[in-house]
């Protein structure tokens, strides 16, 4: 045992004032009594009877000196030398990814084990060591900046909780490396189960690296995919995938619920290390959300250590998509671009079959002019004949050069400068304005009649190199967004846990909030039309509510899933590769200093309590007992 601040022994000089005070205190109060001869006899009796009397008289002084001794020892900060994990300027990176929720650890979860090991590092800090604690979640978080305050470090570690998403090791290591700048004895301690993906691209860290692996087993089965799709004229379909990452065959019960109603529950056996795609029958039409879950039959020997990936959610694709119908004799470019546009369900028809009976948001007529207009937004591409009351089609002009794009927000990112057009038709419409014009006339007309938007592209796609240009999908996307502003959510089915979500506010919608699966409500952040929601740590079904003038005008569900093989593959790794260095769990023999002044302070407190009790017994004992004694004696008399 040695002392960190041996000079604190000077405080022992406080014993002198204590002794002086004790002597002063024993300048006894003088009381005149009628006679002292009985008191003299009493004292003789007492000293004959109790040899401890002399000690008892000084008990308070002894206790006070003991308190001082304990406090001085505590101030001197005694320590014992213990084997330590690391020393110097230490960055402790605690893996808080989804796999750290695995329950294969003796401490309960892998994260609890990681916390315990981090606390061990705190306990063995030497004098002068400083430490920072970084929680490696979806967004790395510095729980405690560099400090030597063990209490703060302990509190920071104990208050941490694991996340449900993958950890961003790149950012975390960059954060740790930043702290290492200018330090000569930097050491990073990585406490993880080894689920560090992209290990090759991680930044190199100067100084000593220490890897403390946690976790024991890789036994886990997860739902790794869940999706739905709706094809025209067919009931909606769902696709799910279950992966057994463990070393043993897993018996699972796969259940599927649509809007809370059970629609399938089947038992499967998944061999070790394989993927199962359970067949799913037709889903009910018009459902909004789908929840898949796997459970394990009672009595199954299989241990699933990570329960958080045993459920997955998705929302009906149709609920968020716009329906567009393309009526064409066949246009590969157009079909292709419509297929890749997000959140658009495209249907196709031919001019000879006329208008379809279904109800569509957008009608696209390619080289075709219908005789009657459907109820919806319209895009005419190279209309062959005049549609009375709507537009007049004139003669075909050759070689339109130098197309100019009007300064219009609808065409904000459309670059027409490199587009070449061989021929176009002279189309006139009084209600429309030319958005793109060439020397001979308008190339794109757009306008509104009533509440429907109509656009006319006056040239055939085959007569230009537009389909080969980047401007083509941008233009079609911009026009479709003008026709039918997309839903607030770009992708409602495929949000990954921990990823921020972009939400567009259209029209007079001015605010929004999200109700998380655990019932908490959070407002959207950001300004203007583009808002963000980042609290997607918890997998499950979220509900987006959009407000206009304080009233809910739109509700849209979206699903957040973990779906991360790196997190579901929970087998702990004994080595990790960071840059060019491979770390294993071999601990270099470093020695730390374990202090125990707090125990001394506690002992001093206990002795102080004893001293207090002794003092009061001595002072108040007689007066407390006096009435009882007097009453008893009065009874005898």
């Amino acid at each position: 045992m040695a002392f960190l601040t041996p000079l604190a022994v000077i405080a022992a000089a406080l014993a002198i004032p204590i002794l002086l005070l004790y002597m002063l205190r024993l300048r006894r109060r003088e009381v005149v009594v009628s006679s002292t001869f009985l008191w003299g006899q009493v004292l003789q009796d007492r000293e004959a009877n109790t040899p401890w009397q002399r000690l008892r008289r000084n008990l308070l002084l002894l206790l006070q000196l003991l308190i001082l001794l304990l406090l001085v020892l505590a101030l001197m900060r005694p320590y014992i030398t213990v084997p330590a994990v690391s020393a110097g300027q230490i960055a402790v990176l605690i893996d808080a990814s989804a796999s750290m929720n695995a329950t294969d650890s003796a401490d309960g979860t892998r994260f609890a084990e990681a916390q315990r090991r981090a606390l061990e590092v705190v306990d063995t800090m030497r004098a002068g060591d400083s430490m920072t604690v970084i929680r490696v979640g979806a967004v790395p978080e510095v729980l405690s900046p560099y400090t030597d305050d063990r209490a703060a470090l302990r509190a920071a570690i104990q208050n941490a909780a694991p996340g449900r998403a993958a950890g961003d090791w790149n950012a975390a290591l960059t954060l740790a490396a930043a702290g290492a700048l200018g330090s000569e004895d930097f050491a990073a301690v990585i406490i993880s189960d080894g689920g560090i993906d992209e290990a090759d691209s991680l930044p190199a860290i100067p100084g000593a690296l220490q890897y403390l692996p946690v976790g024991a087993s890789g036994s886990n089965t997860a739902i790794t995919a869940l999706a739905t799709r709706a094809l025209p004229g067919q009931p909606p379909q769902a696709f799910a995938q279950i992966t057994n990452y463990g070393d043993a065959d897993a018996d699972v019960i796969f259940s599927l619920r649509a809007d809370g109603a059970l629609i399938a529950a089947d038992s499967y056996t998944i061999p070790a290390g394989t993927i199962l795609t359970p067949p799913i029958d037709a889903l009910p039409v018009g459902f909004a959300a789908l929840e898949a879950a796997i459970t394990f039959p009672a009595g199954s020997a299989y241990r699933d250590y990570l329960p958080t990936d045993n459920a997955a959610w998705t929302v009906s694709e149709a609920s968020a998509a716009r329906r567009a119908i393309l009526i064409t004799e066949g246009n590969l470019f157009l079909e292709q671009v419509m297929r890749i546009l997000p959140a658009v369900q495209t249907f196709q028809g031919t001019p000879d079959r006329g208008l379809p009976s279904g109800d569509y948001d957008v009608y696209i007529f390619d080289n075709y002019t219908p005789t009657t207009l459907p109820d919806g937004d319209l895009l005419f591409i190279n209309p062959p004949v005049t549609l009375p009351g709507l537009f007049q089609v004139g003669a075909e002009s050759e070689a339109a050069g130098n197309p100019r794009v009007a300064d219009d927000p609808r065409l904000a990112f459309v670059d027409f400068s490199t587009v070449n057009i061989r021929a176009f038709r002279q189309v006139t419409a009084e209600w429309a304005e030319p958005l793109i014009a060439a020397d001979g006339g308008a190339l794109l007309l757009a306008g509104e009649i009533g509440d429907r938007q109509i656009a006319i592209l006056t040239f055939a796609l085959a007569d230009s190199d537009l389909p080969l240009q980047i401007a083509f999908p941008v233009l079609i996307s911009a026009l479709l967004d003008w026709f039918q502003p997309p839903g607030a959510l770009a992708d409602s089915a495929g949000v990954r846990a921990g990823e921020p979500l972009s939400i567009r506010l259209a029209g007079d919608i001015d605010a929004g909030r999200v109700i998380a699966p655990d019932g908490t409500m959070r407002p959207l952040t950001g300004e203007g039309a583009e808002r963000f929601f980042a609290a997607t740590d918890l997998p499950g079904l979220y509900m987006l509510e959009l407000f206009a003038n304080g009233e809910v005008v739109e509700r849209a569900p979206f699903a957040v899933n973990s779906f991360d093989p790196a997190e579901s593959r929970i087998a702990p790794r004994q080595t990790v590769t960071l840059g060019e260095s491979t770390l294993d769990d071999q601990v270099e023999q470093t020695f730390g200093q374990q202090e125990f002044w707090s125990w001394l302070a506690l002992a001093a407190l206990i002795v102080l309590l004893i001293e207090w009790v002794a003092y009061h017994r001595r002072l108040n004992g007689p007066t407390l007992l006096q009435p009882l004694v007097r009453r008893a004696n009065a009874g005898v008399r």
Partner: protein
Amino acid sequence: MPEQPLFDEKTRRSLEQLILQAAKVRAGAIKGERRSIKRGTSIEFADTRAYSPGDDLRRLDWNAYARLERPLTRLFEDEEDLAVHVLIDSSASMDYPRPETDGGSPAHHKFDFARRLMAGLGYISLTTNDRLTVTRLGGESAAPVQYGPVRGRGHGAGLLQFAAGLRAHGTTDLNAALKSYALRGQRPGLCLVISDLFSPTGLVDGLNALVGKGYEVAIVQVLAPEEVEPALAGDLRLIDSETGAAQEISMDAGLRDLYIRRVRAWRDGLRQDCAKRGVHYVEAITDAPWEKVILYDLRRLGVVR
């Protein structure tokens, strides 16, 4: 000390009906109100005996002489008085509890109690025409040491004046004081000692001297409740009120119990010493009324009837 009447009218009247009594009636110098064991000169006939030369011829029973032709002398009951000695301890220890005493009450003042008791006993003896001598034991005050001997109700005022003038002061060696009183050569009688008996040398020798001289002794030990069950606490330096000697104590529950046991043993020892010598012993705690000592305790012992 506030001059208030030592006792009120009601107490005085109840005292008037009492009489002090000694177990063996002592020869009185003058006629008193007690029947003597000796034949005397009262008008109450007791017996006759044969005449012997020198007898008072006035007492010759002429009727018997005529019938029996033998001279017989009539004998009468004698009536005698009692010498009553009241000794009051006026040492400083009787001046307790003082106002500054911890938990002490002025109502428990020992010397007040003792003076009232003294005056009460003196008043009884004056009422019954006894020969009363009141003496203070010890004390270095200028007050007169002794009052009396006096006789008769008329001296009541003087007695009260003497009592009012007494002060508790100085030291008393009880043994020496009692011995010297016994040797004074006065007429022995009923001796009432009022004291707290706080005397390191004890009082056995003094009692022996008094009893040996033929006194019938009754001791009234006056103690304050604060002396029997002290309300002291903490680290104290006790100052003896008589000698000024200091005694340091650290008062706690154990010490207090020890003291209470010690006081009990001391009083038991005193009682035994007195019983061996035929001395009456009465304990008086000053939180009880002083009349109780006369009307109950001394009556029970037969000192007052």
